């Protein structure tokens, strides 16, 4: 029987929630959480081990985490490495991608993951590994595992593998040379496409150009000592009563909060409502996320002209890129109106 090792975060590895996100990597023999479902659904392999690592530990100590995990795997026999599914969890997606690529490089075994299309891990890693489109949350667990399992069985039995479109994973932008079954040569296909285009008919390009959503670099601030600087965060810092009822995850709302006369953000006056990280540190001292105290110091020194009297806040976890772009545009319109010259945005 072929052997499979599965990677999970602290939550799916049943260690705990956000308060355990610093959990150091661990390897367990046998099945934990989603490993059970992988073991059940994959017919031609068995899950021998489950690796569990906290998302924050991987995010903040990547080199160390990878080294420890590769150490666990040293000397173990395995034919396939599966990480996730990571759904729409950005840090989990990052962790799945980082560890999968490291495992692939060191042990040369196939690696697979699954992520929702809005998970930043998709853009980051899909070129270098196989990632199946997944659901937004763990409600899609069984369905997401099924997709991976089907493909895993093909790999483990050495069955012929199709293209990304045929198999259903995110395209890796790899071009293969193939003999087409219809034997229509490229020139004929191209002229056909051109004719369709001229006639305004739909056609399917054979070379899609990936769409890059890039923002031009802003003009540098010429004189910082005269500039009005605004502070923004996706870390969910708000007055403790959360007056704008910004959601703790998948936010669609943002707020602006007056900091006139404040030297720093006091715990007990401000807190974080972000559900994607342990709030203890930011609740105790909100400046670790929204550094108003340091900005005031620079204002006093004259390094900057002025700290804008509002800071802006929303929650980044699970927030779609579409909503984020809309909120960004709304905030920028206000900032321009207020004559703000530049912004610093902190993220968690």
């Amino acid at each position: 029987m072929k052997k499979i090792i599965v990677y999970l975060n602290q939550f799916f590895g049943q260690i705990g929630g956000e308060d355990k996100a610093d959990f150091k990597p661990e390897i367990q023999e046998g099945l934990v959480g989603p490993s059970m479902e992988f073991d059940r659904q994959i017919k031609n392999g068995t899950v021998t081990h489950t690796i569990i690592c906290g998302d924050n530990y991987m995010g903040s100590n990547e080199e160390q985490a990878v080294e420890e995990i590769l150490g666990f795997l040293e000397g173990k026999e395995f034919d396939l490495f599966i990480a996730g599914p990571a759904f729409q969890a950005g840090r989990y997606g990052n962790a799945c991608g980082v560890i999968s690529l490291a495992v692939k490089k060191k042990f040369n075994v196939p690696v697979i993951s699954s992520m929702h299309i809005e998970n930043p891990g998709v853009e980051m890693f899909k070129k270098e590994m196989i990632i199946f489109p997944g659901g937004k949350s763990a409600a899609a667990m069984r369905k997401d595992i099924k997709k991976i399992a089907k493909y895993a069985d093909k790999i483990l039995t050495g069955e012929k593998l199709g293209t990304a479109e045929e198999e259903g994973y995110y395209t890796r932008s790899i071009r293969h040379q193939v003999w087409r079954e219809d034997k229509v040569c490229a020139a004929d296909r191209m002229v056909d496409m051109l004719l369709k285009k001229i006639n305004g008919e739909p056609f399917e390009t054979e070379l899609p150009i990936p769409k890059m959503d890039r923002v031009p670099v802003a003009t540098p601030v010429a004189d910082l000592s005269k500039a009005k600087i605004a502070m923004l965060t996706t870390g969910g810092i708000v007055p403790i009563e959360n007056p704008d009822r910004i959601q703790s995850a998948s936010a669609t709302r943002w707020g602006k909060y007056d900091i006139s006369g404040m030297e720093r953000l006091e715990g007990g006056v401000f807190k974080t409502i972000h559900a994607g990280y342990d709030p203890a540190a930011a609740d105790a001292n909100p400046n670790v996320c929204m550094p108003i105290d340091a900005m005031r110091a620079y204002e006093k020194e004259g390094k900057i002209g002025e700290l804008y009297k509002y800071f802006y806040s929303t929650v980044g976890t699970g927030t779609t890129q579409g909503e984020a772009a809309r909120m960004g545009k709304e905030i920028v319109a206000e900032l321009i109106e207020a004559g703000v010259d530049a912004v610093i945005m902190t993220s968690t």
Partner: protein
Amino acid sequence: MANLVPVAKTAGANKIVPTISIPYPLGDPATTEKEQWDLRYHRVGVALDALTADVKEQTVFKVRI
């Protein structure tokens, strides 16, 4: 200012200053108040200087503390 620099790059940020963690980007509560302040003051300063930098592509700025 971001802890997950690769995510910041993917999201399209042009000027990136690394922070130290997700729950406390700018001050580890396990260190002294002074150490937290030094780190925060330094990295916010790097971010301010970054605003004046004329870069042509995505740039991750170096921090000392």
